[in-house]
């Protein structure tokens, strides 16, 4: 019986095979794509298996690789937490790899496919290594390799300047984050001697004084949130995701951001373990801000993938809310509640991976078909791409947190965790935290609004664009990939109980409490966290109920065949109804712009071109709208200016006059002698 960790380690090696294919059969494009992506899919599947095993058995296994520094070989470790993330990563990557077969073949011939395949596999392998790492060095190596690989993937079409800019911004942010994480490891390793200090085990042993623990936590928290795209470290995200190939953005947004969540959980719950409540409060605050701001930014977008990217910011926020609550509860020694909040966060992690992956895949299909990223140029695709549209709809419903799909379950759990806040000893928190719940509700509703906009504008109505491309349904492999993901979304929504019972082993290790021990008297049909008296939700019943009633009403109304007459749209007698008159993404978001506009840097202009005849009928009306993220101007611009100034100052040292150079060394001597 081969152990899970061996499986995963093997799978990491397996990711090299596609790279070999690139070298071997690089010239045969179709064959290369088919084979290499199916191999990657298999390798991902291995991780799904090993992940499930790790979570189900609840065992912890170590492996020490013979490579690394002489006195610091690479330590690998697979415990339920990393198992869970392996499962998520593996599952989505599996779906995406299937999807990629069709997607990549659909790309234009001049694109550097080989580069895509090579870095795609390195990317996934690195993410898996991040979850397996058990010492600071390999963790950071895997972390940075992941960043570098995704950097090259974002730079896939390096001819376009926006790709280059986005990739550059992303890489720099990622590197800053990585260095911060490195420093936090340095702090934690500092309390044990020699090279052994770098292993996570040693860090677990070392009980840091609170001051240093705080330093370590803050460093790692901001380091990881730079990768997770927590506001205000989110600027790279809406730049990088849109320009990357869609299968890559699906992975980046779906699972790469989650590795940051993994890091935060690993460091706080597993390594530091004991912390004051305000850490959690901070995480919660950042989560709430990210959630609300993220969804608002998303509402303002009309670039499909940019919009989805901002939704990743929102969902990362929601996940952080769960984790923050869990941290607070842990610090007050309320294990069962901590478990609930943690599970809520983790469950949303998995859900977001699924539906965001699905949405990006759908976006990829749409963009491949229409060669268009601006939603206001699309419309009516539901008639041309029935499969894609229905899968995309599933994604929209899930991300809008509507029952009976999966997004709702995790948000419901989070609400339950919020409701437990009164059991906290600190009065102020009791008051403040429910307000957070209100913000979460706002987020959910806004997300729903946003996806009504997305789906309505892209798939419903009529085609708005100037050019009329021939739109065809996505390739079969893309459809399969999306269908599997959609099914997963539905299952996660309807049968959460089974998965959550499995996840007990995680919460038991991290916060020493189980959820299932509290629930479970109703069995798999009812999700009853803490106590069936408190709250209960039965996904299956709701789902079946709604479907059943629909069916019944349908049949009752169709006992005699109801006649349906198809007619053109009723134009109120106004003869010239054109697609241009439809609501667009911009116009849909207008009320929200009016209400929440103060949060953005909005520039809106309307001007009428020279009129003739009656002033009420201008020949042409131009509308210009630009919505900008304020954070760029607030935080990043100043920093960039400072850096430029500094570099100019540094350049002044090198002015070419040899006398001054000699004076430098002269002064240096005098200075040092004066120091004596």
């Amino acid at each position: 019986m081969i152990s899970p960790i061996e499986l995963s380690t093997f799978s990491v090696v397996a990711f090299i095979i596609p790279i070999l294919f690139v070298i071997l059969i690089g010239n045969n494009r179709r064959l290369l794509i088919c084979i290499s992506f199916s191999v990657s899919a298999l390798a991902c599947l291995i991780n799904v298996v090993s992940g499930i095993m790790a979570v189900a058995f609840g065992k912890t296994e170590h492996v020490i690789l013979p490579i690394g520094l002489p006195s610091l070989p690479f330590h690998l470790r697979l415990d339920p937490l990393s198992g869970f993330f392996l499962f998520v990563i593996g599952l989505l990557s599996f779906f995406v790899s299937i999807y990629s077969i069709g997607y990549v073949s659909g790309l234009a011939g001049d694109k550097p496919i080989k580069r895509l395949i090579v870095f795609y596999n390195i990317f996934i392998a690195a993410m898996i290594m991040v979850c397996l790492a058990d010492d600071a060095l390999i963790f950071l190596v895997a972390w940075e390799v992941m960043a570098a690989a995704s950097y090259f993937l974002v730079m896939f079409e390096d001819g376009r300047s926006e790709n280059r800019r986005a990739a550059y911004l992303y890489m720099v942010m990622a590197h800053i984050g990585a260095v911060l994480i490195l420093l936090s490891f340095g702090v934690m390793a500092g309390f044990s001697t020699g090279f052994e200090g770098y292993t996570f085990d040693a860090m677990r042993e070392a009980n840091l004084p609170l001051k240093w623990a705080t330093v370590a936590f803050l460093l790692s928290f901001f380091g990881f949130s730079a990768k997770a795209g927590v506001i205000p470290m989110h600027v790279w995200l809406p730049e990088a995701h849109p320009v990357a190939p869609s299968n890559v953005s699906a992975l980046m947004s779906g699972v790469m951001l989650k590795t940051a969540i993994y890091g935060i959980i690993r460091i706080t719950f597993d390594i530091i373990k004991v912390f004051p409540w305000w850490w959690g409060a901070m995480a919660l605050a950042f989560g709430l801000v990210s959630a609300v701001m993220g969804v608002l930014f998303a509402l303002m977008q009309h670039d499909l993938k940019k919009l989805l990217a901002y939704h990743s910011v929102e969902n990362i926020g929601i996940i952080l809310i769960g984790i923050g609550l869990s941290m607070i509860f842990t610090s007050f020694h309320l294990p069962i509640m901590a478990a609930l909040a943690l599970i809520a966060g983790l469950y949303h992690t998995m859900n977001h991976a699924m539906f965001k992956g699905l949405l990006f895949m759908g976006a990829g299909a749409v963009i491949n078909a229409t060669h268009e990223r601006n939603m206001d140029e699309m419309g009516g695709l539901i008639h041309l791409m029935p499969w894609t549209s229905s899968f995309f709809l599933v994604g929209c419903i899930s991300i809008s947190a509507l029952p009976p799909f999966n997004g709702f379950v995790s948000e419901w759990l989070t609400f339950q965790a919020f409701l437990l806040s009164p059991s906290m000893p600190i009065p102020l928190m009791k008051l403040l935290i429910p307000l957070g719940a209100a913000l979460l509700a706002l987020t959910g509703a806004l997300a729903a609004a946003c996806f009504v906009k997305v789906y309505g504008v892209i798939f419903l109505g009529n085609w708005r664009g100037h050019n009329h491309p021939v739109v065809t349904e996505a390739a079969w492999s893309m459809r399969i990939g999306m269908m599997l993901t959609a099914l997963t979304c539905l299952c996660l929504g309807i049968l959460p109980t089974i998965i959550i019972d499995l996840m007990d082993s995680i919460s038991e290790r991290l916060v020493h409490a189980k959820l299932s021990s509290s629930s479970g008297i109703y069995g798999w049909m009812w999700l009853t966290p803490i106590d069936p008296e408190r709250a209960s939700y039965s996904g299956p019943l709701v789902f079946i109920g709604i479907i059943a009633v629909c069916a019944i009403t349908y049949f009752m109304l169709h006992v005699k065949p109801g006649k349906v007459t198809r007619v053109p749209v009723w134009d109120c007698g106004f003869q010239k109804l054109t697609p241009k008159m439809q609501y667009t993404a911009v116009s849909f978001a207008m009320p929200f712009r009016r209400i929440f506009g103060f949060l953005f840097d909005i520039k809106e202009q309307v001007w009428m071109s020279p009129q003739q005849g009656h002033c009420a009928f201008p020949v042409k009306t131009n509308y210009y709208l630009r919505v900008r993220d304020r954070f760029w101007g607030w935080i990043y611009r100043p920093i960039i200016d400072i850096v430029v100034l500094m570099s100019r100052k540094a350049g002044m040292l090198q002015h070419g006059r040899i006398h001054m150079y000699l004076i430098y060394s002269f002064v240096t001597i005098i200075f040092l002698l004066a120091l004596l």
Partner: protein
Amino acid sequence: MKLLHLIFIEILQVLIVIFAAPAFVGWVDMLKCWSQGRTSAGVMQQYRNIAKLFVKDVVMANNASWIFRFTPYLVFSTGVMVASVIPIISTNLFLAPSADIIVLIGIFATARFFIALASLDIGTAFGGMGASREMMIASLTEPAMLMAIFTVSLTGGSTSLLHIVRAFTSGVVVVRPSIMFASIAFALVVIAEAGRVPVDNPSTHLELTMVHEAMILEYSGRHLALIEWGAMIKFFLFVTLGIACFLPWGIAATDDLVSIVISVFLMVVKLIVAGSVLVLIETGMAKMRLFRLTEFLGAAFLMSTLGLIFFFILE
């Protein structure tokens, strides 16, 4: 036997809701007419409307997709689904645990989501306008509604309606400031959710003001009937939800026939009262401009938050 009994009560309640909803709406309309000094069409008018729509044929735009056709059924069925969960005549409904308040809100949100999609499906300006406005209003009502519900469920120590009702009814009757504020907030939210004046005017087709009507403008025949009916059920359910949360006394705890009858009777009384209160508000206020709604719903949110704060400070 027991199971049969439960199923009987369940079905009974659902049927009551389905068939009482138009009557309730009719009652509200009637009151409104009286208060505005018009002669009303009577309580049964809504039944006539629905019946009329059912017999009519469906006329549909050429580019209507399956979403357009599916939505009416979904709207209706979500109503029915919720009807089986809220304790209206009795507190031992075996389906009740399958959804707590938050889930109820979620289910209604699903229905709204699909209506909005359907309204965008045809691709007319009206549809888009309606959808955009509806979603905006919803996004503002949701936090207020949730806060109100939070207050209630903190008091009741649960989010599942059964236990809230039990907790209230079992305890001695006390007037709690938190609950009071929460109920006011809830009333405002119900007005917004059900699309009544001053948020929306169900009886107008003036494009500047209409929200819900704009969304369903393209519907006709049985589809329109289902949607209208679903809307009525939703309205009715929101009122009963409010009743269950804020004055649950009298809802049958035991499932003998007598108590059920009593509770039905009490429910009718409560509904009549609630309806008249709503009418008072409606006739008292004028339809608001769209961007005034933020203030209206902001007030609701403030109320509910106050309720919450009072819960922590005073209790």
